[in-house]
């Protein structure tokens, strides 16, 4: 999975990235999501029915993911004006949402922002991230649905970027 550009992702940028995801929901659906308290989760990532992964690299390589329940994804599609809502369509839409968020991030950070093409998976499919990595996860409350926004950093990221 080739990465783009040379600049690393530090914690301030990660925080901005999280905010960009929230902004996407607010702007495209006119309904602002609420982030729950963050937690560190150990073991296999807690994923819902559909998940979009965005891989970034640099000094702190890792992944950001957004996970949706099927009802949440359907509501989102309805809000976006999409009538076709079969599972394949939902999966594509989740990938598309991750793509838009990535584009917004590149717009914000500049073209040197190192990020790969997003990957969308359905529940039960192989994860694009290594097993056993701790996750930094927020619960998302949106339109009475619950989703998950997570960050997974590679082990070599266990150093605060200067």
């Amino acid at each position, binding site marked *: 999975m080739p990465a783009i550009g040379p600049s690393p992702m530090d914690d*301030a940028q990660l925080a901005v990235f999280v905010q960009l995801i929230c902004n996407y929901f607010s702007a495209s659906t006119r309904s602002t999501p609420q982030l729950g308290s*963050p937690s560190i989760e*150990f*073991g296999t990532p807690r994923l819902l029915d559909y998940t979009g992964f965005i891989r970034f690299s640099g000094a702190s390589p890792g992944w950001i993911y957004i996970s949706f329940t099927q009802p949440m994804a359907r509501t989102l599609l309805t809000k976006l004006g999409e009538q076709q809502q079969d599972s394949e369509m939902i999966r594509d839409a989740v990938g598309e949402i991750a793509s838009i968020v990535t584009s917004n991030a590149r717009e914000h950070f500049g073209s040197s922002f190192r990020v790969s093409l997003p990957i969308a998976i359905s529940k039960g499919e192989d994860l694009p991230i290594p097993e056993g990595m701790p996750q930094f996860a927020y619960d998302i409350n949106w339109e009475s649905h619950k989703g998950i926004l997570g960050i997974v*950093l590679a*082990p070599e*990221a*266990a*150093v605060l970027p200067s």
Partner: protein
Amino acid sequence: MNPHLPYRRTSACSHVGAEPLLYYHDWQLLEHCDGVKPASSVAKDLGISEFAITESLERLLTHGLIKAEAINYGDYWHASQSHGKKERATSANAERVAEHKAMLSAVELVAARIAQLEQALTNALGTLQAHTPTAAAAPAPVAAVEVPAPQAVAPEAAAPATAQQQAAPLAQRAPSALPTRAGVTSGRGPSPAAPVPPGFAAGQPATRAAAPAAASQPVAPRPQPQPAVPPAQKQTQLPQGQQLKPLVDAIIAKAGGGTKGQLAVYRVFLKVPSHMLAAAGLGKLSLIDQTVVIRDSELWTNIVRAAQEVAGLDYSPV
């Protein structure tokens, strides 16, 4: 990683030389991973505790020495037939296992008796302190019960701090803190002559089993009745436990607070060995309202060290 699945040795087994260093029972388990029998069942036969087997599997998986195995019925039938023969051959060792278990029980009884005596001693000390306030700060009785010397504290805080320090190490040696890992491992003693697993050159298992046992101390050749608790084990349990929240808050503050600080905590935990977190039952750590208490001193040391390395935080609990 699921201990109820069967695991098979991978081709990596034939490439390992003197490395990696594993515990004695890790090698035992590896030797018996035939891809048919669930690991939990193998562990039971070997007398390895459920706790130890989980850690063993994780270490073997980490080194790529085993993988979970799914087989068809034909393979199962053939493997189970040969496995049956092997089981019959090893049944002669059951008596020896029973002997080791009996020895373990004896050691635990001695440990329990020592714990009772220590409790009585603690009570006596408490009574003594209540009647003679100056005795609390005296170093002599502290040394007699192997309590660490009191830290430098303000005079007004000296008495309660000393009392706490005296109670702590004694509680570490209570029977509940004794048990399984080092005790069971050392109690098992050397394994009976076992068949050489496929993929190993002749004579290698014994060499491999001996090397990690010598390098790391949890495996002793034979249990001796005198030492109720091995010295290393005295430090594995924090009697009162350490609240994680003050440390987490300190890391967050040190890293600038907010999401940045929370991500710093996350980076700290990236450096803590996952098997230790799993052993402590730590599945999720809330960064706002967590109330986790760490009781494993090794885990606590690792977290504090990681906080120092990642966030430059020199943490000493109040």
